């Protein structure tokens, strides 16, 4: 029953785990996507295809991979982070990265060729070019973060596998929903779902404002 565990804590933990995963995943995915989209290199087509394919990477598989990595019988077991929010963040970051990278690639590629030429013609170095194009693709980049966040706030496979749904420590909204459903408490499960949507709504509202704010 929901009253048996702290709803506020569960919500905060969801926000924390998915928020940090989105931030780290975007910090990696946006520059990576910009470089892939704007630089020419051998195998570029293959890299792009692989990135897009990973959109469909099952969260539970990410959970399994991270579990094997951090299990005490695994290579990084000594870090002792299995069944902690940190492991959950790692698993979710892995899900965010391909999504943010892929959408960034598309966004920067779609920036008008004339802008890219103008930027070069005005004397921008390679690095300055990439940064300017990224800024022109601002709307798309925020969109990438939004989609990344959406993927992880809503996923349960990875969170459950590497977190263990421990009351007070690694229980998040999605794993709580799974628990309520398993116990037949469907109304509570739905209520938790509504809370999750409310959380997502607030985050998206903020991101939308960021998106619309013209970086003049």
């Amino acid at each position: 029953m929901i009253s048996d565990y702290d709803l506020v804590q569960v919500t905060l933990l969801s926000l924390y785990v998915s928020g940090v995963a989105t931030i780290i995943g975007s910090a990696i995915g946006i520059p990576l996507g910009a470089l892939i989209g704007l630089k020419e290199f051998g195998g570029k087509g293959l890299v792009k295809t692989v990135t897009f394919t990973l959109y469909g990477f099952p969260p539970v598989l990410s959970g399994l991979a991270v579990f094997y990595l951090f299990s005490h019988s695994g290579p990084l077991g000594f870090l002792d982070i299995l069944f902690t929010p940190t492991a959950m963040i790692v698993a979710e970051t892995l899900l965010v990265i391909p999504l943010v990278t892929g959408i960034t690639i598309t966004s920067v590629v779609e920036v008008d060729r004339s802008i890219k030429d103008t930027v070069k013609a005005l004397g921008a170095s390679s690095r300055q070019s990439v940064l300017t194009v990224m800024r022109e693709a601002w709307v798309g980049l925020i969109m990438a973060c939004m989609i990344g966040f959406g993927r992880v706030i809503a996923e349960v496979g990875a969170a459950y596998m590497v977190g263990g749904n421990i009351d007070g420590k690694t229980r998040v909204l999605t794993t709580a929903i799974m628990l309520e459903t398993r116990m037949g408490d469907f109304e509570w499960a739905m209520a938790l779902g509504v809370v999750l949507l409310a959380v997502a709504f607030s985050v998206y509202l903020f991101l939308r404002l960021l998106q619309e704010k013209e970086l003049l």
Partner: protein
Amino acid sequence: MKLDMKWIAVVVVVILLVTATGAYLLLKGEEKQSLLLATTTSTQDSGLLDYILPYFEDEFVCEVDVIAVGSGTAIEYGKRGDVDVLLTHSPAAETAFIAGGYGEFKKKVMYNNFVIVGPTDDPAGTSDSTNASQAFLRIYENGTAGNVMFASRADNSGTYTKELSLWAKAGLNASTFSNDWYEETGLGMGDLLDFCEEKLDDNEYTLSDDATYYQRVEQGTIPDLNITYSGDPLLFNQYSVMPVNSTMHPHVNHTLAVGFADWLVEQETQELIASYERYGHRLFFPNADGYVSPSSLVVGYVGIQTLEPSQATATQLKETLIVENARALVRCCE
């Protein structure tokens, strides 16, 4: 390339907020020692652990982190040293676990009951069977004849293991069953009961633990299902506790794990378990070695008066009983 200072500030604030939240959440749980316990979903869902663990946490000044997964998964966690102690109900798997050297020891704790659940009118006629195996045989005969169906967990759970052993006792091999009447679902226990309710027209039967059954009844999700057969010792579901081998996995919290195992089989805790009720029923029956249920203590008290003092075992028994008697008598007469 100057970005709006204002928005950089906002983003920084957000990052700080998120980090702060995380730090708060992580740090506030860090003061006490913790014991990582892997158990099954049905154990956790029964509410027993929420009832008894606070006593353990108080006495040992620690926190118990419970991870509830399928039996097979819990055992796997134990083998890998990802948890400190296991509380499971899969006797065969547990024996293999100890034999493989993964556990310090295994102690019986308690049992609950499996029940055969089916449509209220019991079309397979299981209710007057002589034992659970015969009930299963009747289900098999009706199933192959097309009157009823059976929904199986078909996962690594204790329930599934018990189900297979019952088929085997009836001389049947479940792997040969046709899926015209035998459905291997891979569902959890609660979901499986709901599934049988949904498929009432197929006259679905299943094997369930009583706690989950009563819980679903209370939820109101299975109005047309009933316990059609129960009570046979064949349907006992034995729980055991096993601390993970600390030589194989030195990082496990060995002291607390063994402490927990010993605490579970202590007389007081066993009585605590016996006192747990939910959904209007008593769910668990303690049966640790050396557990003496209060009613038998009174008898023992009477009996001890006639024992020869020279019998060593009698002395031991006496010493224990005299201490426990006082408690038991107080409790009995309260």
